[in-house]
């Protein structure tokens, strides 16, 4: 029978070191500061530190505990990262094998086997089973390590290929961007040199050329608007009783002027209702002014177009921006004034009615005073005079109330009249507007989008260059990793693995003797050598080099050269800063 026990057991097995651990003993609590001593803590401060470490109240229960000595935490892409799981698998299998050895040892010990005083001629059966399993485990470990390394190399090769492709695509895109930027610059230069033919006037003339005509129409509009709205303001802003009496008196006096009575009464009414006159005049003037200004701005907005005068585009835009503001403000002002007038007219009936009510109360009071005066010659005349005055005022306000109700009924119609007059004012402003923007400082309208496009292309070029650099750098890293893996010799630790497996038999014998209360040295059957015959491993055996690796390295060099060539003219440089 071929002996599998041909190699000596590693002397580290029983010493508790890494190579001697077989899974049956816990890790030692040896000091970790490298000098074999537990770092001392100084006096009470040290004890306080220990308590703090133990009972500190602010620990994050969810924080991931980091072992500063754990090399697996930052495994990276090296050999260790690849073989880490295989090592773990190996240790787990070894542990199970050791457990099995202990179990077999106990079972055999219960039967008193092997007999301590009888020498055996062949290999003890349980030991043979354990030796075969150990041999199989070692073979599997070797195959796994090679396959995993080879897979990683192949994967890295694929990644390298992909990165080279990306680099090449980015370099091509960078070159295409450079070409497009060049074309765009050419277009910009040509548009900058573009000149409009001389003598082209940017402006327009008035439709209505006569200033006299303008002022006549403006005056007519103002007078019409004033005449339409003044009575409303007259009712809104009542006079005091003295002025009311005077107004009535003057109105009667004007009767003697026959055909001039109408204008005279109106003029007197206007002058007597001075507050209402001022408010109405200001409102009407503002309304006409707003209408005229809005109309003028409307013409400024619609008259010019950048496409018709490309060289005056900037001026036209600024001009239109200002007039748009004026136009919107004018419209809002007109809407406000018209709304004010509309709502004022809507409530004058109530206002007039309230005055009638107030006058009725005054009249009743005057009548009561007259009754109280009775036959008193001194008091009766004054009381009677008050009754007469109150009666006249009431009559006047009754007339006003009737007028106010009429106005309220036709309020909507008056609004349309006001709108019509405002539109007339706007039309007047529109037809009387003239402008000349010939003294322009513009540029071709295509320049702005072209400049934007150029900026966008420059940003794209920088992005392509950055991506190309990243891809090439990653490709170089990947190539270096492949070389590193190829020269890593991952089977270099084969001896240590074999030593671990050798300890399985030793553990079986020790456990068997311990259970039986014997010294293993006193068991004659254990006197035979316990070494398992593992196959020799060439630790310098090379991993298979990918066939396409050389080609990929050449392509990477070519891409780098191509990038250097394109980058020399395609990467935009920042504009020199003026100091």
């Amino acid at each position, binding site marked *: 029978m071929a002996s599998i026990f041909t190699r000596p057991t590693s002397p580290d097995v029983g010493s508790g070191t890494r190579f001697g651990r077989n899974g049956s003993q816990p890790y030692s609590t040896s000091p970790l500061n490298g000098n074999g001593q537990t770092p001392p803590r100084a006096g009470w401060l040290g004890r306080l530190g220990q308590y703090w470490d133990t009972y500190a109240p602010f620990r994050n229960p969810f924080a991931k505990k980091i072992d500063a000595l754990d090399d697996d935490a930052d495994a990276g892409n090296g050999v260790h990262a690849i073989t880490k799981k295989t090592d773990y698998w190996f240790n787990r299998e070894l542990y199970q094998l050791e457990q099995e050895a202990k179990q077999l040892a106990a079972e055999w010990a219960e039967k008193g086997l092997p007999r301590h005083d009888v020498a055996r001629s062949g290999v003890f059966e349980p030991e043979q089973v354990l030796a075969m399993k150990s041999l199989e485990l070692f073979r599997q470990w070797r195959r796994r390590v090679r396959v995993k390394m080879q897979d990683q190399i192949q994967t890295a090769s694929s990644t390298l290929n992909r990165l080279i492709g990306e680099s090449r695509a980015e370099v091509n895109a960078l070159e295409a961007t450079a070409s497009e930027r060049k074309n765009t610059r050419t277009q910009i230069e040509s548009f900058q040199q573009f000149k409009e033919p001389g003598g082209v006037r940017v402006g327009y003339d008035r439709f209505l050329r006569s200033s006299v005509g303008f002022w006549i129409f403006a005056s007519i509009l103002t007078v019409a608007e004033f005449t339409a709205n003044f009575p409303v303001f007259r009712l809104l802003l009542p006079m005091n009783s003295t002025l009311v009496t005077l107004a009535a008196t003057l109105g009667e006096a004007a009767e003697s002027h026959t055909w001039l009575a109408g204008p005279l009464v109106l003029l007197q009414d206007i002058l007597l209702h001075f507050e209402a006159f001022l408010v109405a005049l200001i409102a009407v003037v503002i309304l006409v002014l707003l209408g005229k200004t809005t109309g003028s701005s409307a013409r400024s907005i619609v008259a010019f177009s950048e496409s018709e005068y490309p060289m005056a585009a900037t001026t036209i835009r600024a001009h239109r921006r200002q007039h748009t503001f004026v136009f919107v403000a004018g419209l809002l002002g007109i809407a406000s004034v018209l709304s004010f007038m509309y709502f004022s007219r809507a409530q004058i009936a109530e206002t007039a009615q309230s005055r009638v009510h107030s006058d009725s109360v005054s009249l009743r009071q005057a009548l009561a005073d007259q009754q109280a005066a009775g036959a008193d010659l001194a008091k*009766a005349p004054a009381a009677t005079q008050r009754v007469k005055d109150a009666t006249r005022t009431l009559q006047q306000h009754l007339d006003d109330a009737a007028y106010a109700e009429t106005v309220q009924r036709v309020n909507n119609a008056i609004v349309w009249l006001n709108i019509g007059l405002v539109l007339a004012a706007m039309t007047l402003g529109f037809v009387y507007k003239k402008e000349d923007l010939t003294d322009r400082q513009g540029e071709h309208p295509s320049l702005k989008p072209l400049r934007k496009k150029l900026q966008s292309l420059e940003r794209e070029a920088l992005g392509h260059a950055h991506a190309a650099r990243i891809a090439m750098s990653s490709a170089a890293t990947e190539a270096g990793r492949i070389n590193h893996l190829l020269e890593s010799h991952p089977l270099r630790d084969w001896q240590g693995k074999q030593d671990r497996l050798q300890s399985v038999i030793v553990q079986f014998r020790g456990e068997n003797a311990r259970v039986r209360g014997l010294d293993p040295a006193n068991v004659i059957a254990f006197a035979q050598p316990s070494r398992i015959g593992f196959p020799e491993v060439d630790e310098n055996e090379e991993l298979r080099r990918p066939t396409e690796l050389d080609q990929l390295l050449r392509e990477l060099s070519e891409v780098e050269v191509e990038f250097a060539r394109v980058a020399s003219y395609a990467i935009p440089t920042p504009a020199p800063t003026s100091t």
Partner: protein
Amino acid sequence: MLARVARVIKALFLVLASSLVAAGCGDAVGGESANKGHAYIVGIDISGSRTRTELDESKKLLDDLIDRLQAGDHLTLIEVYQGGREPARQWSDSIRTPRKAGELTGSERRRLEDFRDIARMQTSILFDSVRAREIQSTDIFGTLTRAADYAKASRNRATTLLLLSDMINDTPDLRMTSRQDIPGDGWIRHLAAAKRIPQLPGVCVVVAGADVSSARGAAIREFWNKYFEAAGTRVSPDNYRNMISDPSEVGCSAATDAAGMAP
């Protein structure tokens, strides 16, 4: 553009200011008038010696006279009688002089109408029939004294004293209830010497309601003629009447004025 608008607004204000100045000048011109109106002093007697018809006639005459009042006129109403513990009442007021003579403005017309209405109302109060029953005396002399005071206050106005009375004085001092009780010339001279006769120079005196048909009435008229002469005026026979139907007759002709009103 703004400069043009400013010019337009300036022009509007100039027009407005011109209108105001023109209106102010008009007021200044019409503020004082040469027409100062006429002053009427009316003595009202509703004593029991007068019949209901006479009272109605007197009231009608006074109402008609009030209707004829013009802007600038002055009216004074004086009770001739005295009733109970109340003294003789009186009321005096005037109508504002028009700014333009002969051209009344609306307010002046309205003021005139108001004045007439109030005067009619005062007349109604003074002709109160209830109060007539309480009358205890008829003091024509006292009324003339008060009228003389009002006449002096009327300044340059033409003044007419209208006595709506039967001219029978009935006071404790002098009762003209019978012919014998009417004082003679000596009594008047005595009063004149003592300067106890009120002076009414330039005042046109008109009497309506007096008895002109009986002997007593004639004696009373004779007495008053002499008394008014002592007072500096005179009552023409046409102005000493029982009844005046036309208010335009209340007044003195120019010839009468020239003859009788000189002091």
